[in-house]
């Protein structure tokens, strides 16, 4: 017992200050990419060609990057001869619609807070059932880590529960394999209404690196309705937490932030 107490003193209090304080992130983190349209004048398409998931489109309307498909790998940034695409350490990535994940056309709009009625229901107590449907255990691990003392998800009233019957919604990872489709549908049906669906990671949003394989369904959309999209491969735990808190209206700052396209 004494040893455990001494160990407790050695290990210290380690819960992050986020969201009251800014998160501490690795300086090489590939967060939200920034597109500098002025630098991409000749539309050489080299970025689109190296992109593993064809997340980049270059046409008459300019350069667009679909964060829902993006694996946040360094390929496009390294390939662009003009430096028109640059990964920033911006960790806020969650959106309320699939379209909002496409960078380059309009102002990037972060996830909206639930409407007042839903916020009354879920705002102070949100129970989620996690379903991995072909996920590689990357997203799963960085969702699971929110339960550790570092992120201490419980302090926000958010909890992962063992049964869909106890849940207010699903958090889905993976491209939804053909072999998990029925299990995902049944789990969704087992959650009492009203319910939320959160898609975490490139796979759950678009199929990720498996997009187009006949063994999977290119993400959760089309099988269940999605309320919150959190892109990444996998998203950093802070990105996931930011998305969840934004949905519940627990982030103090305004939802809109300045546009990336300048």
């Amino acid at each position, binding site marked *: 017992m004494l040893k455990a107490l001494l160990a407790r003193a050695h290990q210290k209090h380690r819960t992050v200050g986020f969201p009251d304080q800014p998160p501490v992130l690795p300086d090489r983190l590939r967060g939200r990419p920034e597109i500098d349209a002025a630098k991409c004048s000749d539309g050489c398409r080299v970025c689109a060609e190296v992109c593993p998931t064809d997340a980049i489109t270059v046409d008459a309307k300019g350069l667009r990057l679909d964060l829902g498909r993006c694996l946040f790998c360094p390929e496009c940034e390294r390939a662009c001869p003009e430096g028109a695409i640059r*990964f920033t350490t911006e960790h806020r990535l969650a959106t309320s619609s699939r379209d909002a994940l496409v960078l380059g056309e309009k102002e990037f709009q972060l996830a909206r807070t639930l409407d007042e009625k839903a916020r009354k229901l879920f705002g102070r107590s949100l129970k989620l059932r996690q379903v*991995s449907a072909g996920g590689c255990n990357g997203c799963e691990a960085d969702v699971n880590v929110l339960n550790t003392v570092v992120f201490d998800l419980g302090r926000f009233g958010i909890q992962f529960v063992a049964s869909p019957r106890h849940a207010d919604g699903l958090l889905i990872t993976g491209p939804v394999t053909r072999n998990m489709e029925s299990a995902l549908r049944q789990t969704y049906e087992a959650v009492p209404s009203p319910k939320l669906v959160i898609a975490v990671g490139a796979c759950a949003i678009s199929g990720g690196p498996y997009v187009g394989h006949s063994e999977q369904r290119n993400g959760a959309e089309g099988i269940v309705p999605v309320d919150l999209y959190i892109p990444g491969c996998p998203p950093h735990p802070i990105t996931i937490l930011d998305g969840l808190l934004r949905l519940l209206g627990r982030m103090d700052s305004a939802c809109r932030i300045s546009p990336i396209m300048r």
Partner: protein
Amino acid sequence: MKTGASNVIRNGEAVLLTGIPNLSFTDFREQLLQVCEDGGRIAALFGQPAGTDSIRLFGVLANDANGQLELWSTEVGGHYPALTPICAQAHWFEREIAEQWGVKPEGHPWLKPIRFHHSYREGHDAWNRPAGIPVQPGVADFFTMTGEEVHEVAVGPVHAGIIEPGHFRFQCHGEKVYHLEISLGYQHRGVERALIGGPDKRTIPCMETLAGDTTIGHTLAHCEAVEALAACRVPARAQALRAIALELERLANHSGDLGALAGDVGYLPTASFCGRIRGDFLNLTALICGNRFGRGLVRPGGILFDLDQTRHAQLEERLEQARKDVTNAVNLLWDAPSVRSRFENAGPVPRETALELGLVGLAARASGIDRDVRAQFPSGIYRFAQIPVSSYHTGSVFARAHVRWMEIQRSIAFIFDQLRALTDGPVRAGIGPLVANHAVVSLTEGWRGEICHVVLTDAAGKFAHYKVVDPSFHNWMGLAQAMRDQQISDFPLCNKSFNLSYCGHDL
């Protein structure tokens, strides 16, 4: 029976496809059984279509004693006499061959699908399932037990925690488990099939997500395979940094697992501390490349991110802090009698069983087998810098926990050594096209165990076939065996002590 020495290869050595002996099936079978009887084991056994009505079977045999691999092949039609009745290691491989190519291993004692998909060869199905009707996962015969008060417990595919899907069936009498049958395939996303015709821009992301918690391990096995096929020499600095990343991956997973094992026996101090310390190690990988799982780091020819001087110093400093923290947290486990009494004797896998099943990695080492790719089939920097093999003899949950702890200490010491000895120079070499009509076997020691990639190229130097064997492929049967005669309430503990990959198995 040997038809020349060309069948003996080293890890990461490209050989001409025509140089691989193509034996009669009888000779192939005898050869495999003989090698396994002499202490060798099956690292991979798979089929590749050869002509319209035939499948070429390749067997990769590993001899831990002399660090040599043997590569044999044969051709089969619609069926062949199964190896499994004599050699249990072949069990899962033969089910995979039957499922993928519709080749029936006759006399196989438990021929069921492992991933639940249609055969890749039109008109050939080992179970004569009609082509138009979707294959339902988990729908198959299960081992059953009858008798008074006997009951069956079925769990999954959706589990209670945040984990990947799989289905488990327990045959119980009261609390006691007589048999556990594990049915997977829910994570099958068709990776191997999609790799054919590569390498292309999708290849690396597929490698990085074969088993997402083993990003470095699988990507390294892949890169070493293509580097062998392209005769590419990786700079020394890159080799060292790759090994550092591989050991950081081991550290994160091992410390996380020790925390989870503590949690499963209700010992919360270590559970809480290690849950955090796992993240501290992941953050060290992110310090190098920006991603906690090491995505974007390892590429053919080397690595994409170098350590500058400040980063180097920071890595050393933070690793030292993590070393102190993990030592403090894990030692609590060994000092707590309540933990030890739950770990000891739980889920034992005797050495003979582990050998018979061909277990790999820490599960094998915890059953007293000195089996470690880093020592016996070293590649990269491990050829020059050895890590002692950590093993323990009891095969129990305690042994698997203890081996993890020994490996944590040795991996940290290894990283410090490598950081001190890090040579200057480039971290990536250019890589040309792959040599045509060759084969290569690439092994790395991921944190779970041996990762085996076998790559065959076609006449254009593209992937004609790509076989991935995740350590979990060998080890799921080990978990099933560990549960025999155990209390069903100990399943989470036993399961976590293996912590096997679903997606790495399902591909």
